């Protein structure tokens, strides 16, 4: 495992001169050759979907008109700190990537979307737009809405953003970490990238402090969660719980891990997060607005020791009614998270039915701000 960075140990962002002294000046490479390098590198997006980066780039390059590219550092997920850490430690690398993406796609308009302005952005010719601190702030259509001057809530997905996005223009959105990798591939080449590909992962262990690690691809979940962890939440609040016995051998493909120990109850943690997810609904779609609070309340019931007849059945009914019926993936992701909790913490549900709970501390683990 390699360097661990947290915002608290980042002294101050490097200047452009320091950045160029360390990495060299931004290379001038013809767009077609750059696209080929990105494809050869096999780079996948670091925003959670792991989609091949070159495919999105080529999709926008093929479109006509005045195009827009965005570096997404909104990071609305409370358990993730990698994007703000990267923007503090290496903003110029991200902006390099944004300019390279603009060149590859023919997009002259370049935005950086993040909760705090990296002052590096001011001197490099990108527009900065402050992202609000909502869970859904980083959702692609919400981002496009905000940058277009709207409320920053998800919008109906037709037409797709690469046809009509920001101000009606073809738009491409990349996570800021993806942009940083692009900036490195341009300098050192796809073979270098393949030989030492890494990803940023935020790990939260029993002390509740998120720490960001840069790890080689292929690192396993078990390498990061620490001894004593019994369950791990993989992929944040739209991700899934796994027993550590199952997940330890899995290679890391998501950028967020939160490890639970035997002294806490996963149902209590999940119920608290479910309330947060309900509160963070954009409140635009009836099923989401109606079902998520009910699901959260049902989870709070299951989180209390005592006999709870019918709660699981009602919860499953609401989950089935809301999944896939929102304007964005908030209900689907939330249901995936909740269902995984019901699977993995089935022993705790049984324990609660008998009036007991495994928790030895009331201190919450998973953050809801």
């Amino acid at each position, binding site marked *: 495992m390699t360097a661990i960075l947290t915002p608290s140990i980042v002294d101050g962002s490097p200047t452009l001169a320091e950045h160029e002294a360390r990495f060299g000046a931004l290379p001038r490479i013809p767009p077609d050759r750059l696209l080929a390098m990105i494809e050869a590198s096999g780079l996948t997006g670091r925003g959670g979907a792991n989609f091949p980066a070159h495919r999105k780039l080529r999709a926008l390059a093929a479109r006509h008109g005045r195009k827009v590219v965005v570096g997404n550092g909104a990071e609305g997920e409370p358990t993730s700190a990698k994007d703000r850490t990267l923007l503090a430690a290496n903003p110029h690398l991200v902006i390099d990537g944004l300019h390279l993406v603009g060149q590859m796609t023919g997009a002259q308009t370049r935005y950086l979307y993040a909760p705090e302005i990296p002052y590096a952005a001011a001197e490099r010719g990108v527009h900065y737009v402050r992202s609000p601190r909502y869970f859904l702030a980083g959702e692609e259509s919400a981002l496009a809405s905000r940058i277009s001057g709207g409320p920053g809530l*998800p*919008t*109906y997905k*037709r037409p797709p953003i690469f046809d009509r996005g920001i101000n009606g223009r073809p738009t491409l959105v990349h996570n800021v970490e993806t942009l940083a990798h692009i900036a490195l591939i341009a300098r050192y080449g796809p073979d270098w990238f393949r030989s030492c590909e890494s990803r940023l992962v935020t790990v939260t262990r029993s002390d509740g402090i998120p720490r960001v690690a840069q790890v080689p691809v292929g690192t396993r979940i078990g390498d990061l969660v620490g001894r004593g962890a019994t369950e791990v939440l993989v992929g944040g609040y739209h991700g899934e719980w796994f027993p550590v016995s199952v997940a330890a051998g899995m290679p890391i493909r998501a950028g967020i891990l939160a490890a639970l120990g035997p002294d806490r109850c996963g149902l209590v943690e999940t119920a608290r997060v479910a309330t947060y997810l309900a509160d963070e609904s954009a409140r*635009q*779609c*009836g*099923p989401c607005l*109606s*079902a998520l609070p009910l699901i959260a309340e049902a989870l709070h019931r299951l989180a209390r020791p005592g006999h709870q007849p019918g709660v699981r059945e009602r919860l499953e*009914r*609401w989950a089935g*009614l809301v999944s896939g*019926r*929102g*304007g964005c993936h908030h209900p689907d992701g939330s249901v995936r998270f909740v269902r995984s909790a019901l699977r993995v913490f089935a022993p705790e549900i049984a324990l609660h039915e008998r009036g007991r709970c495994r928790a030895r501390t009331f201190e919450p683990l998973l953050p809801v701000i």
Partner: protein
Amino acid sequence: MDPKLQWNPIACDGRGLCAELFAERIVLDDWGYPLVSDRPVPPELLRDARAAVAACPMFALKLNRR
């Protein structure tokens, strides 16, 4: 190709006219919002489908040939 119904959950306000006019393919959930079937609409049901689309006050329903 038979067309399919396309539902915009953001525009939808749960008024329910669609379910009244096209009960074969639209029912309401526990909260009054439509569960819209994504099966292709055959010719004999097209009139009811078009009535549902036209009646929606929020323009949340469309019939798509693609």
